[in-house]
């Protein structure tokens, strides 16, 4: 699919909306046949809608204290209850979605923008430059991703912006490795040598031939890492190193909940389930995309 959209003049003749043979339409039809894919996409649509327009979806101000309404449990005014400071759990959940989605998106973007050029050039150049770049990536892989993120947080200081950077930087190594792999896979093929023979330079080959080829694995990995980023953001906010209270974040909701596990366990269950469902949806979509986009793995299941 990725190759198709990159090369032929035929593609430009097909109207992607009306024509039922357009690659996008074919892809969408195959995606729609996967109940898991459709289920995950619906969950993500809800989460992303909350992230885009939290004030419309929420019923209360997420940071407004209300001493009289502390820990009220489920009731009509606060249908998911309130926390110890009387803040509406449902509204905090909705606003927390924004933090999760923004951090997830931005950190994956850092990984893609940083990793793709490194990987493609390393694969294309080969030799010593490839060796040096890849050993550097190996060093990043020697850290569990949380450890590397904690290291950057120690250097930069806590806060949500720094957390985003700290999550994104180790992703650079992941995307570099993937795009290097996809570059090596096509480097020796005929269409590359013919491009070289008509005088195409490194930049042209990288952007017209190597980059489109990395598209499928990068989309798949990007979807999976989006979920990882949401978990790490929640973990760091939970530890008090990410989002600063009183701003809403699913991780911070769990920090509060930890103090009330005995009296009010539901305070922990609600944000925990929100994180798990969102990350699950990203992981399941990633799997479906892998099946659909990566022909090599098709039929492996």
């Amino acid at each position: 699919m990725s190759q198709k959209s990159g090369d032929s003049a035929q593609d430009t003749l097909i109207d992607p909306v009306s024509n039922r043979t357009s690659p996008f339409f074919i892809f969408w039809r195959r995606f729609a046949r996967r109940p898991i894919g459709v289920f995950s996409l619906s969950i993500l649509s809800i989460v992303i809608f909350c992230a885009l327009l939290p004030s419309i979806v929420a019923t209360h101000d997420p940071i407004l204290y209300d001493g009289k309404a502390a820990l009220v449990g489920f009731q009509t005014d606060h249908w998911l209850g309130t926390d110890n400071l009387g803040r509406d759990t449902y509204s905090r959940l909705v606003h927390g979605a924004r933090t999760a989605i923004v951090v997830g998106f931005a950190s994956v973007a850092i990984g893609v923008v940083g990793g793709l050029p490194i990987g493609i050039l390393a694969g294309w150049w080969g030799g010593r430059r490839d060796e040096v770049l890849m050993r550097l990536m190996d060093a990043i892989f020697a850290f569990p991703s949380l450890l590397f993120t904690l290291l950057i947080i120690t250097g930069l200081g806590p806060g949500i912006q720094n957390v985003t950077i700290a999550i994104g930087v180790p992703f650079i190594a992941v995307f570099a490795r993937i795009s290097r792999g996809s570059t090596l896979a096509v480097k020796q093929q005929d269409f590359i040598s013919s491009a070289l023979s008509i005088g195409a330079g490194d930049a042209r080959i990288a952007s017209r031939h190597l980059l489109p080829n990395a598209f499928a694995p990068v989309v798949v990995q990007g979807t999976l890492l989006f979920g990882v980023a949401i978990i790490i953001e929640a973990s760091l906010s939970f530890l008090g190193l990410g989002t600063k209270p009183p701003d809403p974040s699913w991780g911070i909701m769990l920090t509060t909940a930890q103090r009330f596990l005995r009296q009010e366990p539901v305070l922990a269950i609600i944000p925990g389930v929100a994180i798990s469902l969102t990350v699950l949806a990203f992981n399941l979509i990633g799997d479906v995309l892998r099946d659909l986009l990566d022909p090599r793995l098709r039929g492996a299941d």
Partner: protein
Amino acid sequence: MQTFILRRTFSSIFVLFIVTLITFFSINLLPGDLASRIAGEEPSQEQIEMVREALGLNRPLHVRYFEWIGGIIRLDLGDSLRTQADVSELIGRKLAVTAELGLLALIVAIAIAIPVGVLAGARPGTFLDYGLTIFAVGGVSIPNFFLAMVFIIFFAVKLGWFPALGTVSITEDPLGNIRSLVLPIFTIGLTSCGSMARQVRGAMVEVMRQDYVRTARSKGLQERDVILRHVFRNALIPVVTVLGLQMTIIIGGSIITETIFKLPGMGKLLIDSIYIMDTPIVQGIVLVLAATILALNLLVDISYAYLDPRIRYS
């Protein structure tokens, strides 16, 4: 084989060197202004300068890096900024808890992942196979600190089977020690075994397609024998490689799990030291954990080359 081991060892040492660079310069070179954060809430310029002077942060970066490296070679990781305690000694005291936790979690993960992966891989497309996929994806989707809280709610608060927080020394009370570690061990083990089970399953499916499996079947061997004698053995080889990855996940998981369950291990010390900006301790722990992972991966690679001779010559 010897050249392979030698080459791999050199390559690991080189990566370890880069790890020291990344560790040191992430903390000391990033524009987070260490001294002003160590000096406390809204420090005056003088206070910041005093902190810089007292901690030697005003000396050139490369000098401090080489001092740190020189210390590492003598197994001296420097002193704590806050208490002046010896960092190597401090880490040494916390090592046992983290190692015990990690090892037991690995055993739990393997004990679940291998049988589940083998059964699912032997019958792809069945109910069990489908269940494994859900379990594995669920395992990477549930944050371990949330799973830890669910465990605390059910097994500590509601049922009272295990303590919710803390641990006792294994030498004082071995049974109490294990009992207090059950919830943390299963938190880490369960969140990490899914990916491993999937790897086992994948390897099983791959081997099942081989010609020698068809041969074994066509000579009339029972399916059970085919799987145990031919498939399982060969499927285990690629699984060895994920052990390294598994250790990385487990060590990463222990950082948060120790913090939640208030276990006095390296992970909790790391987080506590980040709060108070005790950078020598942070550097030391990061280095020890990363070096452990590198060493384990080296062992895994060597044993893999031993099991599968094709690797040595590639």
